[in-house]
């Protein structure tokens, strides 16, 4: 749903804190796609990601008053979701991170390019799943969610040099997988 015409985050937060519960729907519509994508890449499962993100939104609503910089709501939401994903991941070893379902059955209508893309995606997803949670999180925040290192530092609480190192190592691991299967 289009939220481009809706008020900016700081205003929406003020509305919700003033008692307009329904205004929180703007926050959900504005950020759920990115948060869902991030959580899916972290947890390897769309369903687990939906649970984690839904829980995160509910938590964000209940603790909205503690968001000190409503203009940076996005960063705050990512922080809640990363913590929730961490909780989910600690409960199971990294090796158990499921990749959603078996690879899709090929549709005769799929072009060769579609199939190759699907194969490539599977490869990249497996490489991501093999990374430690810290490196996976850093790579996804940087390259999939497009956060700056400053924003990543605010989300994770880590220092920028640490985050850069994790992103660099993640890239190296990914490249190795891509080259091994070229």
């Amino acid at each position, binding site marked *: 749903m289009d939220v481009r015409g809706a008020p900016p985050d700081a205003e929406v937060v003020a509305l919700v804190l003033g008692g307009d519960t329904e205004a929180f729907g703007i926050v959900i519509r504005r950020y*759920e796609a990115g948060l869902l994508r991030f959580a899916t890449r972290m947890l390897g499962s769309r369903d687990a990601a939906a649970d984690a993100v839904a829980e995160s939104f509910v938590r964000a609503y209940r603790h909205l008053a503690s968001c000190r910089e409503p203009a940076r709501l996005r960063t705050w939401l990512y922080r809640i979701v990363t913590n929730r994903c961490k909780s989910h991941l600690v409960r199971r070893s990294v090796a158990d991170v499921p990749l959603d379902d078996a690879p899709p059955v090929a549709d005769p209508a799929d072009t060769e390019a579609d199939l190759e893309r699907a194969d490539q995606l599977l490869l990249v997803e497996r490489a991501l799943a093999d990374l430690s949670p810290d490196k996976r999180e850093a790579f996804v925040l940087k390259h999939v969610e497009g956060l700056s290192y400053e924003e990543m530092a605010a989300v994770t609480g880590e220092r920028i040099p640490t985050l850069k190192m994790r992103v660099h190592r993640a890239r190296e691991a*990914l490249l190795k997988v891509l080259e091994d299967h070229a």
Partner: protein
Amino acid sequence: MNTIDPRIHQALDGELASQAVPAELRRTVAQLAAAADLLAALPPGPAASLESRVMAAIRRPAPSPARRVIRWLVTPRAIVLRVRPAWSVAFAAAVAALTLFTAGDEGPELAEHEGIAQFVGRFPEAQSVHAVGTFNDWRPGSIALKDQDHDGVWRATVVLPAGTYEYMFVVDGERWVPDHLAERLVADDFGRENSIVIVRPARR
């Protein structure tokens, strides 16, 4: 681990303009950028927005005590549930910070400056649960919760000097979890949240 040319990292970090990337490195930059693009597409799955689910949870009034107990028993997740008796939401906050009874009741002899803190959490699959915080110098082990009737609900009632404390639960010696029942949460500067308990002094 494969160490790649630092200029590739610089290009992907936006610190080096693409025109400045040497030709022999551009393929690698493109490969990694393409991998990121693949991941940027939302994986297939249920198309329904989370909005209705989240808004329903936000709008939902607190359930009756009976419904809460039933939900408590059937919910499989190993996290703490909010227990809020309908007659007192304040009890949820006060559960972890209780004023004391009159003299003559059973229980430990409390000094004037001491009070009682009660810790409760639901961890059905746990082998051990400890309360760790500023009341015990963040040492796991000194406040062990117990699940005496094996219903997955762990409890401890502890005598502490009156004051304000930050803490978390440590489940199975390794999983750090805030006490959601406590309702007072504060960022810990380590990427998590601590719960706060306020222990009120005994009254005589």
